[in-house]
């Protein structure tokens, strides 16, 4: 005969077992000051690098190890929300032009949503290459990308996550800027790199 007390004990045991199961492991990383995002692009007259440096929102990323996941990738969750106006191209005109191209007035913020990673990071000093999937929302368009990550841990136990990916203006229905009747033309391709500094919390 199962009494309510027995049900409670069995339920508590199940929860406890799930939480400490070898197949289930949660890593939480909180962003610390100094993270950055960089965009490299070019026109037919110059190359440009625009960056958002010292991103310091205390966003949290979580990796959940779950061996039952169908495609073997691990859920990697978290969102970065960045202001388009914080882009700096180290040239006032180019900075203004990029902000206009990214439709800053209509869409002042863009988002990077982490979705999954290929394996559970080991978090050691040597760089570890893994891949993952992120969703980028820019100028009102959401697009999913595979990203190559480099992960490492420095002497201060700060996790460095560097993600690189080539995207295009047209991925987000944006038109690469063209001037003087198209004689000066930005190339569609942009190399995006974000460097996140994080501390593990648990």
């Amino acid at each position, binding site marked *: 005969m199962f009494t309510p007390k027995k049900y409670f004990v069995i339920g508590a045991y199940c929860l406890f077992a799930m939480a400490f199961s070898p197949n289930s492991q949660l890593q939480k990383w909180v962003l610390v000051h100094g993270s950055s995002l960089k965009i490299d692009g070019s026109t*037919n*007259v*110059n190359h440009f690098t625009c960056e958002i440096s010292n991103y310091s929102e205390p966003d949290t990323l979580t990796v959940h190890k779950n061996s039952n996941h169908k495609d073997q990738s691990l859920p990697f969750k978290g969102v970065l929300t960045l202001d388009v106006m914080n882009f700096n191209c180290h040239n006032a*005109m180019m900075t203004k032009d990029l902000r206009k191209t990214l439709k800053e007035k209509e869409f002042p913020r863009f988002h990077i949503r982490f979705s999954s990673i290929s394996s559970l990071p080991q978090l050691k000093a040597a760089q570890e290459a893994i891949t993952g999937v992120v969703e980028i929302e820019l100028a009102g368009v959401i697009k999913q990308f595979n990203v190559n990550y480099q992960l490492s841990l420095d002497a201060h136990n700060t996790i460095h996550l560097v993600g690189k990916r080539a995207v295009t203006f047209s991925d987000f229905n944006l*038109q690469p800027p063209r*001037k003087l009747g198209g004689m*000066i033309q930005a190339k569609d391709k942009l190399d995006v790199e974000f460097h996140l500094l994080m501390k593990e919390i648990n």
Partner: protein
Amino acid sequence: MKKILTYGLIAGIILSVISYGGLFLAIMFLPSLFVDYNNPLFNSNGSRDLMFYAHAFIISFALSWFWERFKGQFHGHFIWRGLEFGFVYAMIALLPVMWISFSAMDITVQMVLSWLLYGFVQAFAAGVLFAKLNP
């Protein structure tokens, strides 16, 4: 009127080649001079490209009318007449516009000087052509 339109059209075709050909070569060989055009002041979506390329004809018809009206004021060899014509145009039409543009807009001295030179060369070329075709 027919003369103004005919010589304006001929000058427009020649100025198109000189202006846009010169611009294309300048961008190709001196790209650093054009970095500041990556600026939201300049139209960037291509909606005014036709107007941009029509400029050579706009200036040619205007200069053709101006030449017809004042050609008696320019004397000497046709090259000299073209040079003086270009100088008059630069002083009267370009310099004040460049001045007000620089004072009001976020553009560089280099840009303004290059526009002054560009306009002068256009008017000089048109002046030489008019002095030859319609003395």
